[in-house]
């Protein structure tokens, strides 16, 4: 890999400095064929430059060579963590996208140079290699970190547990093996991120591949078998420290958004559903008096609905659960965005005081019952709901797509839906938001969008070692 003479210009020592970054011009969006059988998944390149002729359109696309990967999350080979003081390597380039297929366990490395609109696959790590070298399957979230590229995985190659984290070399992309040295009682896995200033990694729990890949299993859900805990790890010694249990009724603890400022030992975790009342919730974890603690800071209630409008899974409840499936925290740690994929609501909170979030904005789009249309196409009822959300580094633009995970899309939106992506504008105060009427991107029929990554970095791509 060619080394630069000066640090990559997209690396910033602190999140505050990263907020001064120029606005992104392109977005990369993982696209999946929900049938998993018809055509290969793809990486789309979307023009997000408002001054461009092709604004809000797909301007490039690379198809994967296989069918049925289910592209899900992905990330960069390098980020601002390369500036960390203890093992700095700031002269690598933010250039390659690490793109795992959650169903196939295949990992693609895409080169976004020389033409960022035409990424190319430069390496494919086959599933067998992932299985053999890590003992894991179902790779999804990737983070570039101090030691290389960290990738989370849902479980083992036979579809059971435990799920965990493995590492890729950030130069060669060779698999370096499992990350954990001592996993303690941890079995289920989903997301992970860290507090670099505290040498602490936090992980969350969804379910093993067997528990999720054929859809949500109602018996497991009602039995409280999906994940309901956070795990605290010693990032340096790769050792499990403690399990923080939310309570048996809280099912599926998914996205983790620690404060970007490395001196702030707190963050937010989202819970998809409560067995008690179908509500969703956001939890705060924080270090106080030398102890990691958790508390529920936001609860979003289910909305009563006519059973006739509900999918079979929900008919008996007569209500739509909000299903919080993704959250995102702005780089100044002040604004939290919450996707309610079930009700089709997208909510903004002021979290300047993380213990007391205040709702500052809400928009509706899609939703199981509401099917709210976009102002650009008021005639088109929308399926799916706000899902994978990404926030620009300056906090002024928010993008989201509407697909969760193909087998789950099918359960909650059995009528099917088309894939779309929208953009919101946020005022400088960070409070309030509005849909950009010019940005309503409908993907080509048969493809749905999942995670969005912004060129040069975004609010969930980088970690910082300096406040």
């Amino acid at each position, binding site marked *: 890999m060619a080394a630069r003479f000066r640090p990559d210009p997209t690396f910033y020592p602190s999140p505050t400095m990263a907020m001064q970054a120029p606005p992104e011009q392109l977005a990369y969006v993982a696209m999946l064929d929900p049938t998993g059988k018809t055509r290969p998944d793809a990486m789309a390149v979307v023009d997000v430059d408002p001054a461009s002729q092709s604004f809000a359109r797909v301007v490039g696309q690379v198809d994967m060579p296989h069918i049925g990967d289910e592209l899900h999350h992905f990330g960069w080979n390098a980020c601002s963590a390369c500036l960390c*003081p203890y093992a700095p390597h*700031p*002269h690598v380039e933010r250039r390659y996208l690490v793109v795992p297929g959650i169903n196939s366990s295949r990992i693609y490395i895409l080169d976004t140079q020389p033409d960022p609109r035409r990424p190319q696959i430069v390496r494919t790590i086959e599933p067998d290699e992932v299985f053999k070298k890590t003992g894991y399957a179902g790779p999804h979230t990737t983070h570039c970190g101090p030691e290389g590229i960290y990738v989370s995985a849902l479980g083992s190659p036979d579809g059971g547990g435990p799920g965990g984290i493995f590492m890729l070399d950030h130069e060669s992309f060779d698999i370096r093996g499992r990350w954990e040295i001592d996993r303690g009682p941890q079995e289920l896995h989903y997301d992970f991120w860290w507090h670099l*200033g*505290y040498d602490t990694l936090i992980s969350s729990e969804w379910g093993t591949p067997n528990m999720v890949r054929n859809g949500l299993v109602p018996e497991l859900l009602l039995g409280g078998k999906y994940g309901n805990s956070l795990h605290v790890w010693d*990032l340096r010694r790769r050792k499990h420290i403690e399990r923080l249990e939310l309570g048996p009724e809280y099912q599926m603890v998914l996205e983790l958004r620690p404060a970007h400022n490395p*001196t702030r030992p707190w963050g937010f975790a989202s819970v998809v559903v409560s067995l008690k009342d179908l509500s969703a919730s956001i939890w705060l974890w924080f270090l106080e008096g030398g102890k990691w603690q958790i508390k529920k800071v936001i609860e979003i209630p289910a909305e009563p609905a006519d059973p006739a409008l509900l999918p079979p899974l929900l008919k008996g409840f007569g209500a739509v659960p909000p299903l919080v499936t993704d959250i995102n925290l702005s780089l100044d740690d002040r604004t939290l965005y919450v996707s309610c994929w079930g009700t089709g609501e997208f909510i903004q909170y002021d979290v300047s005081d993380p213990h007391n979030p205040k709702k500052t904005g809400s928009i509706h789009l899609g939703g199981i019952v509401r099917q709210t249309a976009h102002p650009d196409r008021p005639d088109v009822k929308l399926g799916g709901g706000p899902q994978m959300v990404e926030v620009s580094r300056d906090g002024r633009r928010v993008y989201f797509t509407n697909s969760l995970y193909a087998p789950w899309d099918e359960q909650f939106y059995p009528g099917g839906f088309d894939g779309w992506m929208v953009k919101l504008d946020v005022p400088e105060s960070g409070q309030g938001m509005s849909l950009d009427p010019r940005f309503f991107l409908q993907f080509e029929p048969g493809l749905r969008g999942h995670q969005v990554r912004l060129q040069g970095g975004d609010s969930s791509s980088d970690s910082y070692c300096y406040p």
Partner: protein
Amino acid sequence: MSDAQAWLALLGLGAFHGINPGMGWLFAVALGLQEQRRAAVLRALLPIALGHALSIAVVLIVIGLLHDALPDAYVRWPVGLGLTAFGLYKLVRCRHPRWVGMRVSSLDLTWWSFLMATAHGAGLMLAPVLLGWRAGGDSAVDHASMHEHMHHAGHHAQQAVDVAGGHAEHAAALGAAASTPLLGLLATALHTLGYLLVMGLVAVVIYEKVGLAILRKAWFNLDVVWAAALVITGVVTLTL
């Protein structure tokens, strides 16, 4: 190499190591920022300097012992070739040592700094200075004994001046007085002094005044410069 030249070279290389963000000052600044007080910056400096010094001392004492035990060429050639090869390797393959951890004790910092200095071949880079200093000292001895010889040949008129000159040369020629391992220790101390001063100065100025935004502009890829420096010192060692 005279004492003055050796001192200058050692202090200069100390400054070169001290200014490298990967060798200490940046870690000190980060610890200060994490704890939000300057005391944390200052507290990190000595343990980091100690680790650096240990790494250098080990290399120079080993080279010193070998030098005093073996013929000159047996030391110079392997050291020179080793340096050149290591530098070339670093030019091609710029791997960095792995370390994760911001919550560090003084002992951790010393160990970290020792690892960084060792992995970068910081001690090896000083080898030619040590060998050159030693060689310079040896020639100073030869020079002095030649003077003595001339006295015996009967230049009585010049005797007082010559004796004074001879003494001055002896007193200054540390390179001649000490065994090579001892000279290595002395070299380590001088080098570390230069390193600590520059590292401390940069850390405090960046922490107090400049801020880390400068990293984006002024963090040149010292890996290449560093590797080139290794190659050059290797070649110098070979041609001493």
